[in-house]
């Protein structure tokens, strides 16, 4: 009888050892290693601080304008790979014609105080915003390019 009990206990202990993963229950009802697993993925976005380490001039210009709170990767895309190996991965220059309207296209759902434009009414028809506006230091009253100046009555 006692032998049967010992065999049963041994079976239970072996089964438990096999079935319960290592580190389970140390910090709660989960495998402790899962925390490290969740930390493991590589960074895809480098973060604005990493950009400023090399590109120190642009963040300084950004600070002066309305875009001071906008992170670099909001417009330039995820650049963790570029930050890790700057010569291997070169970021593309964003096209202001499509990029700017992603935020600034007029919509009734947007907060009233946010600067919005209707591309049909605003601009010189070139489809590009960069001609008049500097995305790194946007001013309230942009300087108009010569073409725009000439069109005015």
């Amino acid at each position, binding site marked *: 009888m006692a032998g049967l009990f010992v065999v049963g206990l041994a079976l239970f202990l072996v089964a438990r050892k096999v079935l319960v993963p290592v580190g389970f229950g140390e910090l709660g009802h989960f495998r402790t290693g*899962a925390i490290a697993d969740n*930390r493991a993925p590589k*960074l895809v976005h480098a973060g604005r601080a990493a950009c400023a380490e090399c590109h120190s001039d642009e963040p300084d210009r950004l600070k002066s304008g309305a875009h001071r709170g906008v992170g670099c990767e909001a417009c330039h895309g995820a650049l963790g790979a570029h930050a890790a190996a700057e010569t291997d991965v070169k970021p593309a220059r964003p096209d202001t014609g499509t990029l700017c309207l992603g935020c600034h296209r007029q919509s009734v759902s947007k907060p009233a105080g946010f600067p919005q434009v209707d591309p049909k009414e605003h601009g010189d028809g070139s489809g590009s915003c960069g001609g008049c506006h500097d995305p790194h230091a946007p001013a309230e009253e942009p300087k108009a390019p010569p073409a725009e100046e000439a069109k005015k009555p």
Partner: protein
Amino acid sequence: MTVDRRQLLAGLGKLLVLTPAAAAAWEYLEAGRPEEAPSYRLADHWWAMVIDVEACIGCGSCVRACKTENGVPLEPYYFRTWVERYHVPNGVSEHPEVDSPNGGYDGFPERYRPGDGAKSFFVPKLCNHCAHSPCTQVCPVGATFDSPDGVVLVDKSYCLGCRYCVQACPYGCRYIDPRTNTVDKCSLCYHRITKGLTTACCETCPTDARRLGDLKDPKDPIHEFLRAHKVQVLKPQMATGSKTWYAGLDGSVR
């Protein structure tokens, strides 16, 4: 062996001094394991998110950044974070019109005309990282859990794909990854926040409509935000202990 009173007291005194010193040294060694956590200690953080509804412009930067950062499938029904557009006709807040084309990934094509007598606004959604999360309570194997620093995480190597948690989440924040057949959800960019960075969505939000905060850090600006704004969580009646606070939240938002 006999111990007189003098020896006993001297021994106890040494023990009293040496024990905390040894504990502190041990703690220092534990924290210093470089491959695990150079300076990150689970007990020092309690992560949360604040969302300023009145600042959200529905650009979809957060949705795109999240999918890129976390490798979320690009099909329009898998999201760790998404943005909803609410359109609430005057006086009928029980029946708002809500849409979220591709989760806001491509922004929002204009559907509404100005002056239609309704109010319209954007609401970003993500895992609320509840302190009393219903999803972790139903997991039969402990594959999803509240981490000691206040983030609801998934153990992908241990998830069965049984979908209980997908049904239990009152906010619809979970999906089954078709590639692994295990559950996936917002991890609050755990691989970023534990390295001193902010989440991908906060990093790319152009209007600071969403901000990550560490409630255990007294210097974190989240405390000032929570003081200065009237905030609300989603579905407070469910008592989930949500740690995603919305400022300027309309009553029509579900």
